[in-house]
């Protein structure tokens, strides 16, 4: 008998693991049964995880547009803030009065040395050039500055109120840049011009997120004189961070109710789910 044959016989005769190695036969059988029954337990956890992730994403999407104005604290003694629910990139303010510069999205506001320097933030994709003039040499328009957005109480949705108008000199980017140079040249090098973000037709910098239902206000729109008085309700409506603090379904009901009635101070909306919303204007 050859060596190979001996080895084969020895190993084939071996039907248990030697050396004290044991394995749970019954547990193995249970595992096999589970596999045969097609009950993969691991997948259940996976489904729960996926459901939780979906819910989390939905909550984030719902909170994103309404939460950003509330997060910006107003430390300005005078200035409130102008917010339009869009994320902003805000440069530090060196204003002596130190207004809370706060806003939502896509904004780049250059440092302002204006003595009034109130809290300024708007949902506009604009770059505001530095101005050393107290009054500014740009547009003589009035700017509506709102205050009170952050005074949010638990049971009361924050409603922005227009309380004061400042003669805040705000410059449109092109004009302000032009004003820096007497010859009318923009004063920007080719590289700097290239670095300026492109804007979409809605006035939002490309690559930034804008919500479909959200109206984007441009500085020129806000600063236009003819709009300061007539469009206050419209601006109030657009810049309102919460509409009853409710879910989108209720918010849509809210809008319907608001469009249908509400001639005076508030309106009462009844819906099929018996949810009652009190609007405060």
């Amino acid at each position, binding site marked *: *008998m*050859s*060596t*190979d044959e*001996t*080895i*084969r016989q*020895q*190993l*084939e*005769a*071996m*039907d*248990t*693991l*030697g*050396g004290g*190695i044991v*394995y749970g*036969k019954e547990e*193995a*059988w249970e*595992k*096999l*049964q589970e*596999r*045969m029954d097609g009950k993969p337990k691991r997948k259940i956890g996976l489904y729960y995880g996926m459901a939780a992730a979906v819910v989390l994403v939905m909550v984030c999407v719902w909170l994103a547009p309404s939460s950003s104005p509330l997060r910006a604290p107003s430390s300005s003694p005078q200035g409130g803030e102008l917010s339009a629910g869009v994320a902003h990139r805000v440069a530090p303010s060196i204003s002596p009065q130190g207004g809370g510069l706060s806003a939502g999205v896509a904004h780049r506001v250059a440092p302002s040395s204006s003595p009034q320097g109130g809290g300024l933030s708007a949902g506009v994709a604009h770059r505001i050039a530095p101005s050393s003039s107290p009054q500014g040499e740009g547009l003589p328009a009035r700017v509506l500055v709102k205050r009170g957005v952050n005074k949010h109480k638990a049971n009361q949705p924050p409603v922005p109120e227009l309380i004061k108008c400042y003669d805040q000199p705000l410059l449109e980017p092109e004009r302000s840049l032009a004003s820096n140079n007497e010859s009318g040249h923009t004063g920007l090098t080719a590289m700097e011009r290239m670095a300026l973000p492109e804007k979409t037709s809605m006035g939002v910098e490309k690559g930034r997120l804008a919500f479909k239902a959200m109206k984007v206000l441009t500085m020129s729109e806000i600063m236009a004189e003819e709009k300061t008085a007539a469009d206050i309700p419209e601006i109030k409506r657009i810049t309102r961070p919460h509409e009853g603090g409710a879910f989108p379904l209720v918010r849509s009901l809210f809008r319907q109710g608001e469009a249908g009635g509400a001639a005076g101070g508030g309106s009462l909306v009844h819906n099929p789910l018996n949810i009652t919303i009190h609007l405060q204007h």
Partner: protein
Amino acid sequence: MTPQKAIEGCKKQDRVAQKYLFDRWSDGMLVVCMRYVKNLADAEELMLTGFYNFYRTIERFVYNGDSSISAWLKKIMVNECLMHLRKRGELIIVEERHAEELVAENSTLERMNANEIFKLVLALPAGYRTVFNLYVVEGYTHKEIAKLLGIAEGTSKSQLNKARAMMQQLIKENMPL
């Protein structure tokens, strides 16, 4: 219950019959898997997968004595193990086109018991071990091994020669007689 009735029961998805076959052959099949993958946890998983495939494909099985069940099961297990080794990238075999098979005669090996030989086999690298198992224990020819592993016949022979040489070396080192 006899193995033949158990096979009939398995064809009807009878859980008792399945359990009977599992109890009878699972230990032996675990040893087979261990010979290839070395690791007990992997071997157990492969053994379960093998039994699962056995029950799934039992309609095609023709009972021809108890040894036919054992042979069928062993074939499934070996295939599972080879797949596992390939998936893990452990089956790295250096190609050698021309090699002659050496005749193995080792009196020391012949005097060793099953457990000692088993340990010796486990001490081999995956490539040597696989070819050694397939050729010596399972009884495949070099041509069949070459086809199974996707290597040249000469490579299979050289792997076997190296496996034998290594085993002799291990015997010399560990059991000087």
